[in-house]
């Protein structure tokens, strides 16, 4: 499946985004600020996750007019979100011509059993995951990029760290297992054996592995890169801060120089207050976005 040209083209764009920052934006002006600051792509949204969380209600695909306005404003790739399982929102986004679709737990799920059959689309998909089993189920459905779910709109990196560590730990464990153990492990993970064997042999996911959900500072971005993320999504963290432009540039720099504390110090130096954060430990289950998706 990974040798198929159609799938390689989908993964190809994810390869080009590596070492970069994908920023949530809600209008053309924010999109231009993000591009100028060095974003590798933007995620076109009606509301950033922090506002979705505050305002509640049903969160759907962004209005088409808004996504189109953002597509026309910048030359970098534009992504948009569809609800989990809402393959018709996905079809509309594909017809619009967005560069990537995020089948996202940040929106209200449309189907509580099934995710979108992403192999049936020409446009590539990214999906969230909390652990290796979830990541491999999404890849089996056709996702060409995985990101940690973290806890979107929280400004708290703890869940993104938990998810990235879980995925990396489970990958490492597979690499030391015997062949007969892999079948049992595939059953435990709820993932296809073929994919489990691929990961065991290569020691990584078959698609790029990015991080999202709660990243608000250059230090947060560098932390998830250290833990094995290949690029970073920043949602509310930029445009909910005091200084979106400076923060966007600082996070871009932090992702490139995640191994260089001196550069990270420079990137963090001039920044004001980040977005207000939430203590995820005291967040009731009903308000957690990461538990959406199966």
């Amino acid at each position: 499946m990974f040798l198929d040209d159609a799938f390689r083209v989908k993964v190809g764009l994810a390869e080009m985004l590596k070492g970069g920052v994908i920023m949530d934006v809600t209008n053309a002006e924010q999109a231009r600020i993000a591009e100028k600051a060095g974003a590798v792509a933007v995620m076109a949204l009606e509301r950033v996750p922090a506002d979705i969380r505050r305002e509640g209600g049903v969160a759907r695909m962004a209005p088409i007019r808004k996504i189109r306005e953002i597509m026309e404003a910048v030359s970098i790739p534009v992504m948009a979100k569809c609800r989990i399982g809402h393959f018709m929102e996905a079809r509309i986004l594909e017809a619009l011509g967005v560069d990537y679709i995020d089948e996202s737990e940040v929106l209200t799920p449309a189907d509580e059993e099934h995710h979108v059959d992403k192999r049936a689309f020409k446009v590539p998909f990214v999906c969230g995951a909390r652990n290796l089993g979830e990541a491999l189920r999404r890849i089996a459905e056709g996702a060409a990029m995985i990101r940690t779910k973290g806890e979107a709109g929280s400004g708290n990196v703890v869940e993104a760290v938990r998810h990235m560590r879980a995925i990396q730990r489970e990958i490492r464990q597979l690499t030391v297992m015997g062949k007969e153990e892999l079948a049992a492990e595939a059953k435990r993970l709820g993932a296809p054996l073929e994919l489990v064997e691929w990961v065991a042999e290569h020691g990584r996911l078959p698609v790029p592995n990015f991080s999202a959900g709660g990243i608000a500072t250059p230090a947060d971005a560098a932390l998830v890169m250290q833990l094995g993320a290949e690029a970073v999504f920043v949602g509310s963290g930029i445009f909910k801060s005091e200084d979106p432009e400076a923060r966007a540039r600082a996070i871009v720099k932090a992702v490139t120089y995640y191994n260089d504390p001196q550069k990270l110090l420079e990137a963090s130096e001039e920044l004001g207050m980040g977005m207000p954060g939430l203590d995820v430990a005291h967040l009731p289950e009903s308000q957690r976005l990461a538990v959406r998706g199966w």
Partner: protein
Amino acid sequence: MRRVGVLALQGDFEAHGKALEQAGARPVMVRRVTELDGLDALVIPGGESTTMLRLLEDEGMFEALRVFGRQRPILGTCAGAILLAGEVTNPPQPSLGLMDIVVERNAYGRQLESRVVRLEPEPEFARAAGEGELEAVFIRAPIIRRTGPNVRVYARYLGDPVLVAEGRHMAATFHPELSADRRVHRLFVEQVERGAATAG
């Protein structure tokens, strides 16, 4: 073994690192001006050219790359080809001006127009690098709209040049680093070896 830098600010620099190893060179990741010292050549990978420009300018590396390119070979793929160009359109943006080519960004369209194709390279490429069709992975690719008189065209797709060379530099609008065929990287490394031999 030649030390070939890979600009590692953003993009698929790791894929280029592996490709260079397979082509018989030693890759060195470059994120700072000082890391250009002592390199025999440089690869500018695929990625987002606007992001690379931002970081190059912030690190004071833009001018350093221009100086490097006046003395040493550079291979640019996709975003790298855009950075090497003499002129960039759609929209216009600064570039190193190391090759006499005009490049239009995202010229095939958005991601839905990305594709993998097999090309029959020009005879000059076949003579230098070996016979046989060449796989080309195009991702939101640019098109080379004009080439100067000294630019050699190694391969075309739908009539437009997609792999070109001028003096010591090479540019591809596709991603040879994402294919198994190593002829493009090998040709670049051989040229670096020859250049170093005559210079040294």
